[in-house]
């Protein structure tokens, strides 16, 4: 018997979720037919992710999913797969997070038969070729050792914050694992993980676009040939309580300082307060939107960097994406502020500016005018969150996870429309704060910066071009805004130690 995807989760987070398990009998699938769509979107979700990695083998689930998505099958070498996909202009891939692994793909109807064979081979008949394993393992290690440490300070800063906050929990390592744990993973580990986690008891089918009913039956029948195995659900992560302002400085030879800060929150998608916080967050720091408040204060008025955003749900690949990606649903979320790199000379000022804005909105709430404008904006802007059938299927799968019924984007727009100014300000007061926060910064001269932070020295700012008086007056307040940081609350980690072993933090 297939396990109902929603109910065990709902039990674990009872009291948080608004709605309970799906009432239809379609418990193993999410279907979004679109009559005149000439393409078909597949998303096969397995309820396993980084939280299921065994201790010492962090990165195992990620490597396994990588091999399914980018490796040979029993019927074709990986080169042959690419060659076959080329004329279809189609592909398949994987999306991977703490709690879920999704193998997804999309094809034009004309090519369905040939595509389906390749796609299902990837899930049901992986070859676990030694060459593919070595290539993907070395690529993943290279990603940690080179890309993340040395060529993307923005992503590095965010990754540092997540490890800082979730250290010691099942969320406490990057999805890709650590250098040492990856090195210890063998091909047999991967085969074993596949057998025990990609099981017929553990999937959810997402189908969208111009498919017919026969395809649904076929997908269900084929997935039933997977081995049987119950996958145990780790407990909901309980990150350590934050006391005061805790700082992690990643010392690195770099041109600019990347800043991320945040703290865990007890609100998940679907919760009544979620929508109130979503409205606040859209005003405070809607991702890549120049109308948002942090962007206005730090970039627009002062030109300190390229952008400044905030989040109430994890938002991977923020540097690459304009809109949030689905299939990162989690049982534990965080409030996060992301300040894109600023010149070192402005790091203290930029941190103060963002923290001061947070304090002001927590203390005073949003103004009626900002509330009304954001409510109008967000109700419609949310239409852009899921414009493709593939994205809608992704959102629908996430709704199963959160126990939300119906079309999520429609629900979101309706809920945003129903909010009152008081509800939003009450939710801000209840869930957000500015005293107990973890701050991660990638910077050069960490020791010197640590002293400045601990002594809370003023950080006056000057500009190349003159600024209006209103800005320079506010600058004075920002530059002396108190950030009480104790010496023992600041840690410095050299970049070469980052992600090295499961206990590097």
């Amino acid at each position, binding site marked *: 018997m297939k396990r109902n995807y929603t109910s065990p989760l709902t039990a674990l987070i009872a009291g948080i979720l608004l709605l309970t398990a799906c009432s239809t009998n379609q418990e193993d699938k999410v279907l979004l037919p679109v009559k005149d769509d000439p393409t078909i979107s597949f998303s096969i979700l397995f309820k396993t992710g980084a939280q299921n990695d065994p201790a010492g083998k962090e990165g195992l689930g990620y490597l396994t999913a990588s091999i399914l998505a980018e490796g040979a099958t029993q019927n074709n070498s990986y080169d042959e797969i690419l060659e076959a996909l*080329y004329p279809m202009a189609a592909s398949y891939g994987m999306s991977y997070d703490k709690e879920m692994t999704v193998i997804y793909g999309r094809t*034009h109807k004309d090519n369905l038969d040939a595509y389906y064979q390749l796609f299902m081979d990837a899930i049901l008949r992986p070859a676990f070729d030694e060459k593919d394993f070595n290539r993907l393992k070395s690529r993943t290690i290279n990603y940690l050792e080179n890309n993340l440490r040395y060529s993307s300070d923005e992503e590095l800063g965010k990754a540092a914050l997540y490890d800082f906050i979730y250290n010691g929990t099942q969320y406490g390592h990057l999805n890709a694992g650590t250098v040492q744990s990856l090195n210890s993973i063998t091909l047999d580990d991967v085969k074993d993980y596949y057998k025990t986690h990609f099981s017929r008891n553990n999937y959810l089918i997402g189908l969208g676009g111009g498919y017919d009913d026969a395809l649904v039956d076929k997908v269900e029948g084929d997935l039933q040939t997977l081995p049987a195995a119950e996958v145990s659900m780790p407990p909901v992560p309980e990150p350590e309580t934050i006391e005061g302002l805790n700082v992690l400085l990643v010392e690195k030879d770099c041109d600019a300082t990347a800043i991320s800060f945040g703290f865990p929150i007890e609100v998940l998608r679907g919760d009544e307060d979620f929508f109130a916080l979503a409205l606040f967050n859209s005003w405070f720091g809607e991702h890549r939107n120049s109308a948002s408040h942090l962007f206005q204060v730090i970039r627009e008025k002062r030109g300190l960097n390229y952008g400044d955003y905030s989040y109430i749900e994890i938002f991977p690949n923020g540097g690459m994406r304009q809109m949030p990606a689905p299939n990162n649903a989690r049982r534990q979320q965080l409030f996060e502020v992301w300040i894109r790199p600023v010149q070192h000379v402005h790091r203290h000022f930029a941190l103060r500016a963002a923290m001061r804005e947070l304090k002001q909105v927590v203390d005073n709430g949003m103004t009626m005018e900002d509330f009304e404008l954001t409510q109008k904006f967000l109700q419609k802007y949310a239409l*852009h969150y899921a*414009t493709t059938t593939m994205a809608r299927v992704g959102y629908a799968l996430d709704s199963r996870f959160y126990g939300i019924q119906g079309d999520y984007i429609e629900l979101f727009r309706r809920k945003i429309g129903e909010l009152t100014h008081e509800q939003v300000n009450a939710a801000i007061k209840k869930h957000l704060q500015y005293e107990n926060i973890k701050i991660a910064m990638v910077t050069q001269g960490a020791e010197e910066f640590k002293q400045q932070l601990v002594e809370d020295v003023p950080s006056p700012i000057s500009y190349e071009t003159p600024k209006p008086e209103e800005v320079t007056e506010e600058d004075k307040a920002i530059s002396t805004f108190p950030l009480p940081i104790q010496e023992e609350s600041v840690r410095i980690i050299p970049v070469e130690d980052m992600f090295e072993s499961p206990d590097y933090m």
Partner: protein
Amino acid sequence: MANPSEDVFPYDYKVETLDNGLKVILVPMSSSKGLVSYYSIVRTGSRDEYEPGHSGFAHFFEHMMFRGTKKYPGSVYDKLITEMGADGNAYTTDDYTAYHLSFATEDLEKIIELESDRFQNLSYKKPEFQTEAGAVYGEYRKNVTNPWMVMFEKLQETAFDKHTYRHTTMGFVEDIKAMPTMYEYSLSFFDRYYRPENVVLLISGDIDEKSTMDMINKYYGGWEKGYVTPQIPEEPPQTGPRMASVKYEGKSLPLLFVAYKGDDFDPSDKEAMAGLLLGDLAFGSNSDLYKKLVLEEQKVQMFGEEFGVNRDPGLWMIYSMIKKTEDVAYVQEEIASTVQQFQEAPVDAKKLENLKKRRKYDFLMNLDTPDKVGGNLARIVAVTGGIEAVDKMFATIAEITPADIQAAAKKYLDVNRRTTITLEGRK
């Protein structure tokens, strides 16, 4: 004419032209769930900057279009767009300028009103004009630190003698610096090019054809004709290979561009369409040369081709970023020998068929949102003035044989059409 049942473009569309010459293409999409994409395509780009001293003006003017009108000043326009939760922007290319917005169906009339207003009644004073001109020079200074930008500048001015493709869309630096003094000229630029006969509206998504056309007529009907055709000089035939090299001040791996004079985009011209496929077959990501240089030998960091769609004969180019300076000559030789190979023998028929299929499905798979329909059709609509060229192009491509590819290689990849540019950066 192609059999309609064989047409590739999957949506029923409607084309109407107003009395003033404004062409409107409507693409209703039942799957678009309350979203509309609105492209205003001005068939003017840096190609049209034929008057000496005014390069870069099309791009600069794109900035001015956000300054607003007496009825809706720029700040009011921005606030209304924000309230609508619309996602919008603009961009300028060699052949056209596009203004695009994606928004909820219920706001369609307001968007039509706003867009028709700024296209007819743009209004700005000299000081705002000068501030914006300064910002454009800032944008240039930011871009000029990019080695690719330096390469494009060098390539275009080396390859062309007369045609306006000689300058990049950004423009010559001395022209950009002088922009703040050109207020009067900017008014005449708007007056000559922002006219209904030179603009195509491409509206796709959750729309009703009739009511949309009624609104278009209401708001754009009074826009007066007045387009003045620019006097773009014809490029004389190139008579021999050209070469130039650039010393780049910043850090960069060596860059190599090998470009050939291509053809203008004519969807019924089999030879020109074969030229477009040729680039992909010989130098694309599935080509033998790509696999050799990038995957097997790993001497090249980046390798690709751009055999593009242009209104006048433009450049078809092969670009590469090479790991070591001493391999630059080797990569040039490899490109030359691939050219020779395509000139001497017809390409494998299966490869050609696979590419034709890929082109078709790549196009079809990327029309799933209104915004993608707008974005993917904009260039062809701008270059040809309509949407019919899409099906015509695919019909012509379907007939191309390996012999046509060989003929195209002989014609277009002729050494006398070639310009080679290399860049060496600071180590």
